[in-house]
């Protein structure tokens, strides 16, 4: 990094918040995405919005890439500084500023850990539903930028559905405030929604006001066991078709169950082909009613048994185990590559079937788990990055999964973001016109392309896979 720029940056944040030794740069060269690693030139921890603004002004002038980073749990290489530049950390900007019980909002800084926020509002009888599996580690800033989903997505939606207002530092250093503690607000374009899910490519979010709900009175958890994968998938569609929207409806196949049990040791069944983890919340009466009805539906779809968790500890152990699924799969092979192709809920059984056929066709191992209830599956390939020939087959298999998802009316990513990993496939989903609109928005806000470069837009789009019928 240019000595002059280095000094200017240090002047802004102070010596102690500027790091550029080899090891301090190395540890911010990756996120949780396999096969992506790239060194930043420096790592900076601003203490407030003003400092972020000064940093961006400077980087804008000198055309230095800026990569905002939460806890680095990203699964599409979104936090990987592909073109170097500075990584921004938010360890100082990690306060919950206000929980407003009259307006049912919480206002916080980007560095707050998701679970800490959830716990803080729950202490006041309030509820923040978005719960990505990494909630114990992930930050709100990361969730906002990736528009993260979670286990409660099908009933409660995703991060986007809870954002009322933002403070954003634009690439030229200007500070923008969008929205507010408002249930209604149609003043102009919805800039709040534009920045949510923008993957750090449009600016730096420095504050957010989030919507809260009253905490549901009761909650129940159950596990339905199947000897047939597609029967489990059919149950999902049938539950939704019966006009029940459970809080959680998760799917795990046998290989996933096995590794999760190996890790968590909570007595998960490993002798069945698939399970559904189902939860409902609401009033005690409604919860009982729904759980009973869903148990009936599962049985009618050949569930071999249905078990209801007897305590909150047991239910929590099940949820925690489910959240560990991806990392637990890493036990099976040196490399785990996961996707989050998403289809309309009604198509879930077709998608599960297609994934298995594609795995067979390319002779790769794909384990599947995910948020079946909202059509968001996580087919995960266990492979070895050192085996080039197999990696090629893995890539082909995933390309075909993407194509199939789109064919079924779905998308290439439900909640993990495009990042660098899925950039070559974005055009499949958006078409030429979609890419053009997005690029013009990007150019208008960030003409020097300093914000998280190399993400969303690929240099080359992959050739569209044609599925032989």
């Amino acid at each position, binding site marked *: 990094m240019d000595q002059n720029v280095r000094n200017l940056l240090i002047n802004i944040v102070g010596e102690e918040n500027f790091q550029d*030794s*080899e*090891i*301090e740069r*190395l*540890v*911010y*060269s*990756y*996120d*949780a995405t*396999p096969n992506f690693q790239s060194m930043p030139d420096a790592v900076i921890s601003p203490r407030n919005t003003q400092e972020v603004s000064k940093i961006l002004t400077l980087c804008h002038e000198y055309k230095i890439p800026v990569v905002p980073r939460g*806890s*680095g*749990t990203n699964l599409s290489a979104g936090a990987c500084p592909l073109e170097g530049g500075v990584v921004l*950390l938010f*360890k100082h900007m990690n306060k919950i500023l206000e929980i407003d019980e009259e307006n049912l909002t919480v206002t916080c800084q980007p560095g707050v*850990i998701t679970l800490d926020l959830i716990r803080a509002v729950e202490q006041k009888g309030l509820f923040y539903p978005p719960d990505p599996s*990494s909630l*114990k*580690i992930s930050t709100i800033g990361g969730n906002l930028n990736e528009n993260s989903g979670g286990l409660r997505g099908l009933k409660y939606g995703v991060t986007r559905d809870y954002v009322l207002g933002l403070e954003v530092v634009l690439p030229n250093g200007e500070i923008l405030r969008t929205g507010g503690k408002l249930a209604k607000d149609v003043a102009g374009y919805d800039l709040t929604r534009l920045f949510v899910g923008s993957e750090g490519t449009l600016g730096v979010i420095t504050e957010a006001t989030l919507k809260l709900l009253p905490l549901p009175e009761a909650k129940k958890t159950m596990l339905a066991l199947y000897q047939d994968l597609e029967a489990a998938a059919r149950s999902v569609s049938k539950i939704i078709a019966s006009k029940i929207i459970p809080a959680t409806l998760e799917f795990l196949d046998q290989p996933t169950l096995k590794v*999760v049990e*190996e*890790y968590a040791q909570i007595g998960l069944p490993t002798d069945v082909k698939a399970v559904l983890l189902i939860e409902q919340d609401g009033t005690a009466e409604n919860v009982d009613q729904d759980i009973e009805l869903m148990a009936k539906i599962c049985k009618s779809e050949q569930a071999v048994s249905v078990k209801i968790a007897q305590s909150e500890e047991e239910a929590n152990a099940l949820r925690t185990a489910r959240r*560990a*699924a*991806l*990392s*637990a799969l*890493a*036990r099976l092979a*040196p*490399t*785990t590559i996961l996707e989050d192709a998403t289809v309309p809920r009604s198509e879930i059984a077709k998608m599960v079937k297609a994934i298995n056929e594609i795995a067979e066709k390319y002779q790769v191992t794909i384990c599947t788990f995910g948020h079946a209830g909202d059509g968001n599956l996580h087919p995960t390939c266990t492979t070895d*990055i050192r085996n080039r020939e197999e990696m090629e087959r893995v890539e082909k298999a995933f390309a075909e999964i993407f194509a199939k998802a789109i064919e079924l009316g779905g998308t290439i990513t439900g909640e993990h973001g495009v990042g660098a990993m899925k950039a070559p496939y974005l055009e499949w989903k958006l078409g030429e016109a979609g890419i053009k609109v997005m690029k013009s928005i990007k150019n208008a806000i960030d003409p020097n392309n300093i914000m998280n470069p190399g993400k969303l837009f690929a240099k080359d789009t992959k050739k569209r896979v044609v599925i032989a019928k």
Partner: protein
Amino acid sequence: MKTETEKQKIQQAFKERMDEDELLNCMRCGFCLPSCPTYIVSGQKESQSPRGRIALMKAVYDGKIEPDEEFEQSLNLCLGCRACEPVCPSGVKYGYLLEEARDILHQHKNYSFPVQALRRTVFKHLFTKKSNLINVTSLVGFYQKSGLQNAARKIGFLNLFPRHLQDMEKILPNMPKKKAMSKHQEYFPSYGKKKATAAFFSGCLMDTMFLETNQATIQLLQKAGCDIYIPDKQVCCGALHGHSGEKELAKELAKQNIEVFEQLDVDYIVTNAGGCGAFLMEYGHMFDDDPEWRERSQEFAAKIKDFSAVLVELEFHKDHDLELPEQIVTYQDSCHLRNVMKSANAPRELIRSIQGVAFKEMENAESCCGSAGIYNLVQPETSMKILDQKMDHMKKTQATTIVTANPGCLMQMQLGIQREGLKNVKAVHIADLLLKAIQS
């Protein structure tokens, strides 16, 4: 400063010795981050987290970065508490990676002459020959009893040392008499009906500085129905060596212990220090490339059990009435007992079974206290930061007794009490607490 040639040699050794599959097994999900005390206390520095340290080891392995001083410091700052292992869904064996990396760094290190001499004394002589340790302990005992301690304190001699050493001097337990440490009975019969046969691993510090605790442990095991053998030829477990980059010495000690204990036909080999127990339990992995010793060490390791788990298994707490004056008690986990020996419940169950005791769990009890072997001596700054946080959590429980299950933790808790000036709080080893409870 390391020279270029030194760095190249280290890099070469990483390439040859580090387990690539294990390095790749970390998929960088970050699930370990919240469990890592140094990540938390450093204000979320990735270079002081398990994920960061593995990435650094991998980068040295791949030749991406140089193993410079800063790299070494990142590894040195790790407590080795292994809290990251039980929370790792991928099951990465972080402890093994750390141990191997530290061993490589140590082997390529040019220690200054005084440090070399000190390391030789401590690792080769003090902690391999019990007689030497007994002599040192007696010397400290002489210092305490002869009036030298009082004199040293009065004339302010101790003020010449850094504060954490001054504090440590104050919390040293009263040393046992040399005669008591040197003389050992090798067999203790069970009281009442015999339920099991056990061999007792007496440890170095436990058998010298904390001799009373060892005696308490033996009595409790007798009362639980154990016949106990204490082989005289056993040696230090080697944990201190293994964790300080002296792997070859650790192996030698392991072989001696295995030879001594495999001659006995026992149900358990019992320990009362989490640090030793965990290391004994993992002897197997030191002999990965030696089939004969691997098998022998695995048989040995399968019998290792902490005495608290043995007591619970033999239902000691159900067969005996345990009672103490009314008090609030809290428990600080021994990291290695919890994370490696996987025993978190047994000590708690035993404490809860004492009448008069109100057990109050402290927040983050499972997190390291900062003692971590000799960490509090070599990394005082981080260690004291961790300890201060620990004491904050402790004070919130309003406990007057902190129970521990490892000598290092015990001394660290005493240090914490001393630093905070808490007059009415004491720290005890769980064996001493239980013995008192059964006697009253």
